[in-house]
């Protein structure tokens, strides 16, 4: 436990000293803020229009601002995740620091968990930081916070799952660019798998659709806490880290 924390802390501090964390934080906040501004502007305009036309149909901040915004942010995560996870092992392998970790009295699984936790918490912090925008909604409106938190949880779970896949991919190569590109491809693939369900309902289509991260995000996005979908994310995390462990072991036997 202590070792996981030691690894995680070093990993986090290195995200912040190599400016990658600041870079992602800035870019993500700017883009998130821009999208927030646009959704909000449209929401306000719609409200004014309805008032002018004299028809007061009910409007919902949760449905019309928060939900599409967090939906978009899970999509933005797709671009951010490879940038976070690509260096985890690839950099250690290139710099030779993997020899330090692998010969220290630390178990492989502790190294992997520490690194993955660091990546996941960086991701969560970036999303949370951008979510400061929601404070305005609570200040000037009255949104329901429960579905919002559930959607946020969905964003976190999806990020954690894709980061586990990214961690595994990072052990496969010394080259960060290759690790990043592969992770991006894998994330995108896990995303578009869901498209098949729109025109096909065969067993295979259902399997592919089930494998897609976005299929399981939908329920969270609607503000529904579904254990079935949470289990999907947890099993992707488990599988990703399990393969990472196997990959590290094979590294030892082969190298």
């Amino acid at each position, binding site marked *: 436990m202590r070792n996981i924390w030691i690894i995680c802390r070093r990993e986090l501090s290195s995200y912040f000293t190599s400016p990658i964390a600041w870079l992602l934080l800035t870019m993500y906040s700017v883009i998130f803020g821009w999208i927030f501004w646009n959704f909000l502007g449209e929401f306000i305009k719609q409200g004014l229009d309805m008032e002018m036309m004299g028809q007061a149909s009910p409007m919902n901040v949760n449905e019309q601002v928060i939900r599409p915004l967090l939906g978009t942010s899970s999509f933005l995560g797709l671009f951010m995740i490879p940038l976070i996870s690509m260096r985890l092992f690839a950099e250690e392998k290139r710099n030779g620091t993997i020899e*330090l970790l692998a010969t220290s009295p630390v178990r492989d699984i502790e190294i992997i968990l520490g690194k993955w936790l660091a990546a996941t918490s960086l991701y969560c912090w970036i999303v949370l930081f951008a979510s400061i925008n929601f404070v305005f909604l609570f200040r000037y409106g009255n949104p329901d916070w429960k579905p919002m938190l559930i959607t946020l949880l969905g964003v976190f779970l999806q990020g954690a799952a894709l980061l586990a896949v990214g961690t595994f991919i990072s052990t496969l190569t010394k080259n960060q660019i290759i690790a990043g590109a592969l992770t991006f491809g894998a994330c995108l693939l896990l995303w578009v798998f869901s498209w098949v369900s729109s025109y096909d309902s065969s067993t295979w289509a259902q399997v592919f659709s089930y494998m897609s991260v976005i299929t399981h995000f939908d329920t969270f996005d609607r503000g529904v806490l579904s254990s079935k979908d949470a289990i999907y994310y947890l099993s992707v995390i488990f599988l990703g880290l399990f393969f990472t462990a196997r990959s590290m072991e094979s590294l030892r036997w082969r190298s």
Partner: protein
Amino acid sequence: MITVTDLTKRYARTTAVDHISFSVHKGDIVGFLGPNGAGKTTTMRMLTCFFPPTAGTATVAGFDVFTQSMEVRRRIGYLPEAPPLYLEMETIEYLRFVGRLKGLSGAQLERRVAYVLDRCNIGDVKMKLLGKLSKGYRQRVGLAQAIIHNPDVLILDEPTSGLDPKQINETRELIKSLAGDHTIILSTHILPEVEQTCEQVLIINKGKLVATDSVHNLQARARGAESMLIEVAARDGEFATARVQDRIQKIPGVSRAVLKEELQNGAVFEVEASKGQLVRGDLARAVVESGWDLNELRPSAMSLEEIFLQLTGSDAVAEADAPPEAAQPPEAPEASA
């Protein structure tokens, strides 16, 4: 402290380390010598539990590297060929991280960090980023991280490679000074390094151990019969090489005197004696009593370099570092106009 039995590492097509056996006693400095690609790093990586051996066993402080890996890792400090530094970290931050990784904490950690900063002479760069340090400093930080948890065994893979001569000397002195507290294995392909730093030497070539002995014994063994170099000169300017050679050969115990080099007013002979160094006195007396000058008399020990080449075969010549004199091509004569 370290016992290695039939240690073997095979890859798909090659055998990197082939049934190596040796043992190292507590407090020794052992030089692991061999041309590049001989299997030094592979052996060290097995000892440090970086990867498991294909066959054979190795124990460190009584613990098996495969089955009791965590115990071994706690007792080993390892400096790989490239110091494993996180370039975006500060020196002191890095040392704290490694210390924690090795199980130190609290006041003990701070004490050890302060100690290694002082011991490795890196106190003045403790707040600098590792990426900004010169190679010599990086190497010393590498050594500092290896000794931070006061390990019983230190394994250093080519600790002086890539340093300038002054840094090499400092690093060697540092390693020597560590020998009392730690058992040290260091690998190198630079021969004088072993002669200067190590007490015992293991010579490895193509994955096989070709010799293991103390530096002193190894030299003696390769030398075979005792031999000396003697430089004799004539005071009056009339030097008769044959006469001197004849006189030397008549000394009891001398089996052979070979002319090595003819000087302007003297000559150098290589004298082989069956009775060892006891002949030296007789030799000196004979020369002086005959009215010649004795300019030099020294045992012609075979350098480790020659032993090494003899043991590893001629194919190692190209890979082994050439001695500094030979590295510099003779200066070209002045260009013709």
